[in-house]
């Protein structure tokens, strides 16, 4: 699934947070706040929440830092979740074969993200970790 690079987003918020129990609730609140500025309906916001939760469930529970970059381009909401290290997830998300299984993943992350999002794609970050860029239109 291709991701179109969006030009000149209106708002950009970046969160740097240590992995661990409180990271996810903080991310959800931040996403909720940004969604309210962009009139994103609740069910679409919840899909984004679930996509982020799905990715984090495949990650180690501690060690290192996660980043969350939120932007609100016209008519949509973009989330870049960075600092991910599960290479099995990365391989599944960039695979050409839609039905390729995801060894090393708890669930089929590709299937879930395909269903929840309007678009998503993998972004290489620092050679070790990677990010997943996710987009959801407001309507």
């Amino acid at each position: 699934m291709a991701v179109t690079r969006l030009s000149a987003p209106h708002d950009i918020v970046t969160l740097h947070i240590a992995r661990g129990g409180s990271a996810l609730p903080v991310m959800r609140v931040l996403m909720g706040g940004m969604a309210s500025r962009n009139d994103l309906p609740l069910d679409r916001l919840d899909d984004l929440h679930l996509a982020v939760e799905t990715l984090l469930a495949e990650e180690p529970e501690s060690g290192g830092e996660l980043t969350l970059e939120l932007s609100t381009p016209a008519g949509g909401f973009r989330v870049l979740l960075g600092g991910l290290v599960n290479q099995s997830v990365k391989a599944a998300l960039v695979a050409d074969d839609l039905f390729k299984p995801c060894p090393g993943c708890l669930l089929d992350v590709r299937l879930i993200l395909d269903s929840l999002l309007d678009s998503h794609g993998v972004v290489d970050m620092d050679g070790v970790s990677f990010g997943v860029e996710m987009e959801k239109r407001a309507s």
Partner: protein
Amino acid sequence: MSALESDRVEGQRGAGPLPYGERVEDLSERELLLRLREQQDGAAREELIKRYLPLVKSLARRFASRGQPVEDLVQVGSIGLIKAVDRFDLDRGVELSTYATPTIMGEIKRYFRDKGWAVKVPRALQDLNVRLNRVVEQLTVELRRSPTIAELAAATEVSEEEVVEALESGRAYSSVSIFSGGGGEEDESLELLDYLGTEEEAYEIFEQRRVLAPAMARLDPRERLILHLRFFEGMTQTQVATRIGISQMHVSRLIRKSIDNLRQYMAEEEALAEAARGRGEV
């Protein structure tokens, strides 16, 4: 006693009424498991749970520093133990303790996840969350789409920040509210009957996509239907809610619960495979 005699005695004590004077406490773990499987023997089940409670306590203590009373964690872990005892398959060739450990850990971790950061949610936020559940439903009907946070704030006469906070705080209560609300059971049954054929196909796709059909069998029919509609029919949460006759927020909670269950199943399977590899069986 020879090995043959030992097997014969185990076979006798593992099935049928116990010989006079014998108590479940005297039975071996395998005999208890046999009695549970063959006769659904409640006493054998209780004895197994009693014997493994020290394991639950030991695992619960590992989380003692995370701000929750250990007694609560033991309670939660016990639910995992009961699930493990009920689901354990003697033919797997692994010890019950190997199977139970990830299940108990999974249950405790899920408890922390549900609790999240909002261990103590202010009463006002709890009340707002309850109101929001109703308002989301009303506005979804009026607007014929899911409402935005700004619309919810206007309808409940609070700030958008309060709406966001209340929605987040509501997650702490998802585990208790998950079985409440919803449409009539009869309507759901009809819907399920309509979908039986399609569901079979969905399992096949799930199998292909490695979300695992056996794991799906652990979900209740409504959860399976919701996952099917959301992930294979491509319906939005709001459309699923309308179709099933429950609120969108309830659909959201059920999707999470189902996915959590699938994930826990996979983690258990992974732990078992790991244990089998350790013994050189694979």
